[in-house]
């Protein structure tokens, strides 16, 4: 386990090499928040819709911008890149479990982003627009758990897509489909509250809501206390399901692996 902790630490440290990145990323996050807040100001100008008022939506937007930054599904791009260039060979000649290495590496990135992008962005955004406190200590604790689930679930998704790349040598088509589903059903842009009834049911049946809507709704106390535990349990179930699928695919993938380049 110490091995993977060191990968985590190295990945965190690697990120520190490019300092300008920090300022630009904070700026980009803030811009995204500013524009979304402007949209919701216009939409909710005449009062609450479906019981959701402007301060709620501002909190929702800030939380989701934070969640978006810590999600790890985009790691398939990294695996994709290593497969395309054949650099995957370098990872596979080491005596380590590849998925655990990827997870440690990604957690390093996430921890870095949490410390250097998310914390300052949320702080500034809260000062500018106001951020409501968690509904209760219980909600706050459940929010942290929901965030952990979101992070791990996003890893499971990224890993599964990365494994598809082992077969097709590119992830482009899968990632487009996946990102489309995330934008639509995670609720990060449009909360599930505003979905028409039929679509809301679809969204609730899918795992994507855990990548945006669920943590924010829990934080804001918009989910009844009795529903929190079952919802989180469903999230955990999705993680187990995706990881099992990934483990099966890994076995097949290694046989099919083509290490490109000389």
């Amino acid at each position, binding site marked *: 386990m110490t091995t993977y902790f060191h990968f985590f630490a*190295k990945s965190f440290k690697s990120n520190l090499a490019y300092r300008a990145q920090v300022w630009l990323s904070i700026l980009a996050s803030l811009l995204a928040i500013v524009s979304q807040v402007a949209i919701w100001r216009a939409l909710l100008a005449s009062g609450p819709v479906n019981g959701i008022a402007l301060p709620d939506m501002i909190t929702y937007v800030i939380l989701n911008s934070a969640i978006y930054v810590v999600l790890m599904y985009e790691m398939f791009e990294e695996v994709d890149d290593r497969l395309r260039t054949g650099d995957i060979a370098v990872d596979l000649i080491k005596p380590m479990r590849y998925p655990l290495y990827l997870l440690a590496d990604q957690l390093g990135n996430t921890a870095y982003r949490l410390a250097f992008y998310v914390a300052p962005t949320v702080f500034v955004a809260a000062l500018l627009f106001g951020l409501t406190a968690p509904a209760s200590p219980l909600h706050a604790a459940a929010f942290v758990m929901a965030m952990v689930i979101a992070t791990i679930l996003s890893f499971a998704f990224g890993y599964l897509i990365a494994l598809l790349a082992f077969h097709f040598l590119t992830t482009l088509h899968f990632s487009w489909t996946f990102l489309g589903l995330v934008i639509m059903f995670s609720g990060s842009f449009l909360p599930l509250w505003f979905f028409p009834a039929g679509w809301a049911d679809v969204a609730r049946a899918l795992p994507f809501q855990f990548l945006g809507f669920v943590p924010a709704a829990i934080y804001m106390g918009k989910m009844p206390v009795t529903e929190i535990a079952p919802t989180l349990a469903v999230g955990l179930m999705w993680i187990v399901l995706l990881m099992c699928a990934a483990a099966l695919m890994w076995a097949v993938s290694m046989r099919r692996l*083509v*290490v490109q380049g*000389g």
Partner: protein
Amino acid sequence: MAIIEARVLTKEFRQHRRFPGFFGAVRTLLTREYVLRRAVKEVSFTIDQGEAVGYVGPNGAGKSTTVKMLTGILVPTSGEAKVMGRLPHRSRRENARRIGVVFGQRSQLWWDLPVIDSFDLHRYVYNIPADRYRSNLAECEELLRMRDFIDFPVRQLSLGQRMRAELALALLHDPDILFLDEPTIGLDVTAKDRIREFLKMINRERRVTIILASHDLKDIEEICPRILVINRGTIVYDGEVTALKEKLGTQSTIVVDFAHDPGEIQLAGADLVLDEGVRKHYRFDRSAISAVKLLASLAERHPVRDVSFQETTIEDVIRKIYEASGQELAEVEELDTWSRGRAVTR
């Protein structure tokens, strides 16, 4: 004792058939025809503990594919490779613990971090005991002269420095076998020499088995007593480098610069192998005719400006082997085109 055993090792790659041109691109998307490429064909060899073996062949001959199978990152299509008694792809991680690999064209170092950080991480990945790590690092630092750049981020190193760091990294965990895939590619003469000296030392003193895939024959001549020559996926020579040189026997090449182009002239007892106008290359058998006699008869008829002798290089020998095996130096063979599982004629 055999440390590596390859038995009728074969690797095929199946690719969708590609058609040229724009409409060809559309066809490529729809086709169900495959092209089967056999990168390595029924290759067999045994390598003993402590040997240094050169693995030579032109681009696309199957060198890298073999190395990848031996390191456990490619699964053979058929046949078997055993490394220290294990099947590398079945026990990839156990195998990885005992081998070191250097890819000349890829880096195993962390690009944005100081060299020493990559070494440090390596220590945890391979569970290297603290005292072994310290003494190995000190030795590599000394022999590869890494002291002045070990604290620099990898991205700031020169290619020569980086390759030295890569070599050190591959040796920190005391591997039994060191696989090197083009380790001196792109390096200048001094950097190459330094790396060759180091590899010789590692092989001699630490008894590390070395498999060196390269098409720089000088690398191989200096480091490896034994050589495997591969072309189009098949081993065409397996034996000692010196025996290989003797294959050309007492043949020698003489290069003559004439004052002016005498046209195509033949010499008794020598073959004109290359005609560049005023400069001509003749190959002759030293045991049959003396070089002095040859020159004298030539100078009698044409004014000669300069003469030089060319030593037989391993390159000549290998060229000869390729010629003898009746093949061109070529990329891997395309086997058959398969359509929906059935062979079709092309």
